[in-house]
């Protein structure tokens, strides 16, 4: 072989460090930016944007002295705890049923079960309202034939029912990631040792699911705590207030928001959630940090349901119809009607007026366009950020990579509304950078911060499956960290990046709570417009807008699956 090989340029060591430190600082800034101003505001006597800052602890006293505050805390805890239990019960049962039994059509049923993940909780709440609310379709039908309905969603149990069923898919996903369901041989061993099907379920499957269930409980409790949609749609009319609706009212719907109170309440929620997540990591270690799903094809011996097969199929289908499909379908139907009631023949009320109204108002078309821009462009930038975070955390010698990982996952503990509030404060403190404060990009920024953990969850499992030998081989051959990342790691990560982009696109597109403190005239997004229209009582236009959201998300998911063959969950 010929001579003349030179060493590759050696001055790149600094490049890796510059990227790693730069990105580390950026993520730290992104995560800390909304949090510190909330802390600051909670200690201020006046609003942050007013002149003359005076530090005080008075806000805490005032919050505790707010009339009915004890009731709010109690409602919040009961709502979150029972929602979590209900979601977990349904989720765990579904996980066992769909992955461990010979239930006919379990694959399709399992996918339908996940549909609520793709739809915003707000839209699902509207669907439930349209179907089962006081003047809902089913309610009216029941009234006209059977008398007074036995349910009332405008109660705490009603709210828990809606929220629990909305969150069940998440509990299902976490349960699916448990050791028992990921590795069928563990069960096989018990069966071969002579244990019957039920004993195996009780002694092996369930105990092995416990860590995943514990993790799922904490995550679902967090999500229930920060849920705004269900309490707003079903709790508010009955004057049942939880923390999120309290913050929403004090911070948004009053003309003169009391930000001392809002920030203190937000801080309280943050502390509770951080405490929970800390407890969960203490109890379980960090092993269950991501929902990792290996779609194991071979499930040699599923539990046999025998004569229960068809009754169970009927039960599952009834559940899916009543809890998932019908609420969405009726909302879509509502969009195409001027008035929806079982008493009025459908043909008489069918109309496109709702959509016509939408198109006539630039506010609404603008919101759709804004949401599309934020999701498409913001989602792409966020995907790049997530990819780099993952590469640094899992594939570099960066000294602070463990700290970076922690910081990047921290937004799990930050409810969307509070993240938005924090960015609102942060930009109130800063000079207005070229109109950023009133643009859609501040919303994209808040979304990015909020959904970094979700993005990492989509990327990290794949990254951990790529052998480190592959990038180390490039390093030994003369590629610096950045070249190895760019030429080897990122190309191999492409399917996961597509999944990550889709998850972020959908999350950005359906979010309604993060943006409520951040939008201004001209920078409305779909979620905030839905909320506003709802409070104005524009049910038909809400349904039309929600339909557009559902259609766009469905098209996005469908396209990704068709083109890339990437499944987002499961």
């Amino acid at each position: 072989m010929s001579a003349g090989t030179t060493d590759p340029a050696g001055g790149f060591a600094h490049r890796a460090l510059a990227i790693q430190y730069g990105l580390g600082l950026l993520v730290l800034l992104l995560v800390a930016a909304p949090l510190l101003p909330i802390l600051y505001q909670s200690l201020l006597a006046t609003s942050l944007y007013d002149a003359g800052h005076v530090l005080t602890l008075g806000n805490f006293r005032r919050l505790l002295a707010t009339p009915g505050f004890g009731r709010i805390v109690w409602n919040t805890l009961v709502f979150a705890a029972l929602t979590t239990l209900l979601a977990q019960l349904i989720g765990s049962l579904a996980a066992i049923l769909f992955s461990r039994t010979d239930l006919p059509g379990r694959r399709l049923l399992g996918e339908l079960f996940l549909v609520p993940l793709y739809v915003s909780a707000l839209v699902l709440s509207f669907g439930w309202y349209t179907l089962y609310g006081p003047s809902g379709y089913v309610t009216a039908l029941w009234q006209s034939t059977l008398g007074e309905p036995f349910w009332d969603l405008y109660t705490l149990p009603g709210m828990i029912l809606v929220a629990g069923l909305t969150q069940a898919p998440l509990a299902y996903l976490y349960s699916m990631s448990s050791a028992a369901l990921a590795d069928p041989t563990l069960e096989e061993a018990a069966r071969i040792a002579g244990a019957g099907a039920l004993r195996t379920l009780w002694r092996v499957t369930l105990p092995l699911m416990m860590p995943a269930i514990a993790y799922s409980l904490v995550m679902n409790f967090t999500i229930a705590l920060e849920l705004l949609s269900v309490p707003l749609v079903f709790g508010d009319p009955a004057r049942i207030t939880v923390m999120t609706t309290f913050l929403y009212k004090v911070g948004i719907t009053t003309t003169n928001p009391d930000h001392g109170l809002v920030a203190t309440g937000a801080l309280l929620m943050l502390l509770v959630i951080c405490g929970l997540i800390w407890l969960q990591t203490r109890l379980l270690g960090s092993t269950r940090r991501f929902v990792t799903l290996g779609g194991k094809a071979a499930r040699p011996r599923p539990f046999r349901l025998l004569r229960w097969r068809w009754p169970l199929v009927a039960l599952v289908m009834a559940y899916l119809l009543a809890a998932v499909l019908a609420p969405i379908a009726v909302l879509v139907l509502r969009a195409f009607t001027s008035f929806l009631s079982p008493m009025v023949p459908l043909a008489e009320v069918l109309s496109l007026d709702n959509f016509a109204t939408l198109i006539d108002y630039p506010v609404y078309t603008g919101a759709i366009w804004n949401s599309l821009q934020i999701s498409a462009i913001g989602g792409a930038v966020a995907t790049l950020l997530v990819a780099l975070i993952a590469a640094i955390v899992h594939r570099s010698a960066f000294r602070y990579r463990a700290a970076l990982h922690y910081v990047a996952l921290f937004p799990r503990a930050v409810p969307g509304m509070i993240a938005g509030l924090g960015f609102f404060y942060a930009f109130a403190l800063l000079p207005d950078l070229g109109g950023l404060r009133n643009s859609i990009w501040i919303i994209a920024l808040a979304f990015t911060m909020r959904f970094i953990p979700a993005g990492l969850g989509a990327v990290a499992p794949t990254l951990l499956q790529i052998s480190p030998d592959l990038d180390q081989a490039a390093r030994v051959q003369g590629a610096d960290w950045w070249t190895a990342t760019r030429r080897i790691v990122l190309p191999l990560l492409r399917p996961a990046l597509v999944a990550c982009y889709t998850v972020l696109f959908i999350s950005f597109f359906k979010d309604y709570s993060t943006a409520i403190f951040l939008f201004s005239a001209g920078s409305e997004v779909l979620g905030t417009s839905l909320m506003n229209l709802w409070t104005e009582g524009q049910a038909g236009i809400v349904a039309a807008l929600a339909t557009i959201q559902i259609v766009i998300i469905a098209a996005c998911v469908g396209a990704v699956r068709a083109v890339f063959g990437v499944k987002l969950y499961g």
Partner: protein
Amino acid sequence: MADLLIEGLARRFGPVAAVDDLSLHVADGEFVTLLGPSGCGKSTTLAAVAGLDQPDAGRIVVGGKTYFDGARGIYLPPEARGCGLVFQSYALWPHMTVFDNVAFPLTLRRVRAAERRRRVEEVLALVEMEAFAGRHPHMLSGGQQQRVALARTLVYQPSILLLDEPLSNLDAKLRDRARSWLAALRLRLGLTTLYVTHDQIEALSLSDRVVVMNRGRIAQLGTPRAIYEAPAEAFVADFIGTTNFLPARVLAEAAGEARLALEDGQQVSVAVPRPPGAGRAVTLAARPEQLRLAEPGEASDAHGTVVTARLRGSAYIGGRWQLGLELGGSTLRVETTTLPDDAGGDLRLWLPRDGLLLFPAAA
């Protein structure tokens, strides 16, 4: 090409010393193998030379270029070292063709396209893979992947070649072929090579010198023959080849000879250069091929000792029998071409006077 100098290398993982004060010099063009059981520190040493793992202390110098110096705080990143490393997993990039895999190191070195193509073709011809340039790695067999991995390493003429168990993913037949191919290639190229394996046949057949490692330290460093025929300690004798160990006590020692009593009282004479003093507890080590059953009427003489042992079991291992014998409370393995008929009875076993080894008894 260059020589490799390792001095006082140390690497701890928590309380475990993976590499413990290891020093080694590999001369220019020499082929040295690190051999040992898993966890002995051989892979950690290789990773330290490649720059994939930062040691705690010591010095690594290749051809006058300091890769690592704990005392002076020098640590070159892997990309600045110019080593060639063939991974156990081959680490071929699945998203690139064979050609692109091999061309990648040249692209990094900004070699122009025409020159790049020439050199990739040259090195693919060297490993007899030129017909596969357009394929992706998953379309190749294990042996072919291994050749591409080697080509990808050779193409940029590394200062030193590091091989991490390159044959361990191949099945037995293919491994034999790959081993002879690698031996031939090594003669042609004459690269300074550090080879890591747990397979003694690879180590003995390929290497100029073998480093037997145990618990992060060098147990023995020597030529393959020296390692096999004169293991420095019981660990080496046990790890390389098959060795029978018999606990014994020294009865008497005279110039170059020791008279031993086995546990059951039978006596054996062995010639050793520096016999231990009388009364010392020792371990007598004998390779199966050094032992044989005594001929009828054969007695102890100046060449060997005949002792009585009990036959405990036998196994046919293809062409010969492996016998399990009980002697002085220990089990011996001996190979014969014929099976003695009196299974379960006593046999007469011949031990040579020369060639057996004595180690201090394990505490």
